């Protein structure tokens, strides 16, 4: 039991060492609220980095139905993530490596983006945008400001389709 903190510290150092060399990681935590509904479907969710002029720097995650069912292909409803679709989704090809994944159940989910994937992102002020759209439900967009280029955190919250959204930039 006593050894545990030491192990943790060692692990922390091991993780920190490469981080210093390769700069920061970005972690976005997204809470999908449990919604009481007779016909609940997991929401489609997109997470992206937005520049101050509201154009998209990079899409980090898109969670959508990966398969075709008798109602159609999961990609047919990507347009319902209206803001993301217009701001960049429609220019992407899905599925996208390291970005797309299946829909998630209610609860807290996190997206960690290693700095290597954000090499092209100049230091500066940005927003993390999280958009959720649910079949027979609503749509909500939450923006959380953060700074790229040093450790900092940000938080925001939705009121209908999204819960807490937290952003952490670690060095």
């Amino acid at each position: 039991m006593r050894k545990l903190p030491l192990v943790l510290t060692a692990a922390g150092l091991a993780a920190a060492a490469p981080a210093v060399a390769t700069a920061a990681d970005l972690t976005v935590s997204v809470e999908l609220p449990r919604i009481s509904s007779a016909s609940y479907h997991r929401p489609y969710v997109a997470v992206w980095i937005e520049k101050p002029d509201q154009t998209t720097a990079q899409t980090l995650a898109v969670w959508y139905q990966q398969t075709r069912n008798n109602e159609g292909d999961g990609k047919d409803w990507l347009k319902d993530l209206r803001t993301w679709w217009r701001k960049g989704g429609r220019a992407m090809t899905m599925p996208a490596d390291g970005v797309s994944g299946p829909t998630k159940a209610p609860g807290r989910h996190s997206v960690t983006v290693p700095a290597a994937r954000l090499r092209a992102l100049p230091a500066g002020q940005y927003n993390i945008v999280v958009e959720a759209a649910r079949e027979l439900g609503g749509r909500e967009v939450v923006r959380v400001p953060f700074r790229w280029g040093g450790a900092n955190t940000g938080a925001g919250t939705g009121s209908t389709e999204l819960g807490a959204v937290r952003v952490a930039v670690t060095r």
Partner: protein
Amino acid sequence: MKKTLAFLSLAAVLAAPLSAQAHRAWLAPTSTVLSGNDAWVGFDAGMSNGVFIPDHAAMRLAGLTITAPDGSTAQAENVSQAKYRSSFDLHLSQPGTYRVANVGSGFMASYKQGGEQKRWRGAEAEFAAAIPADATEVQATRTDSRTETFVTLGEPTDLKTVGKGLELAPVTHPNDLAVGEAATFKLLKDGQPAADVEVTIARGGIRYRNNPEEITVKTGADGAFSVTWPEAGLYWLGASVRTAGVNGQPGSNASWNGALEVLP
């Protein structure tokens, strides 16, 4: 009284090919922004006072022209004409923007023969032979009408202008419209900027509100006009340009009606 009647009948003659002016012509898509490998969109077309409300007359789809993103002609499917609306489906099988238009052109003339006001409609080539030798006060008019909308699968693509009649040349893409944002378009007549033309902008759903909330804007010298969308919805836009005939040349009457969707 006689004068008024004469004026009214003349007005009726002038307005006849443009029943769209009294009743608005509209071609309404079931969706405009689509994702996926392919998609289907349905369309209703009619003429009525309340835009997109089929309660007056179906639109004849004789001039239906669908241009696919690659410039090829796409075919409408499941075409039908009901009492108050015509309908058809379009299978979007390639990514990009489709132009869906019902286009008509014609030729008409009014003249006097023996003191009696008469009118004629037909093909321009038959015009000279069709007008009696003793006709006076002959006034001929070329008519062009275009009722259209746009739908996009995936990423919007550029639209080629047509160069005939009155048409909308996008500055802002017609499938990239969002509430609260400004959009700019140009009106062209026979490919040239149509300056100082009034454009009427009416949002659908008038049955469920009392205020028509119409917007009127005028095109500038370059044919451009801008609108900041006050609400999401399907909007009807309409404009027409009349040119009087001079020196025996026919006048022209060109109209354009469009349906554009603004998303929240």
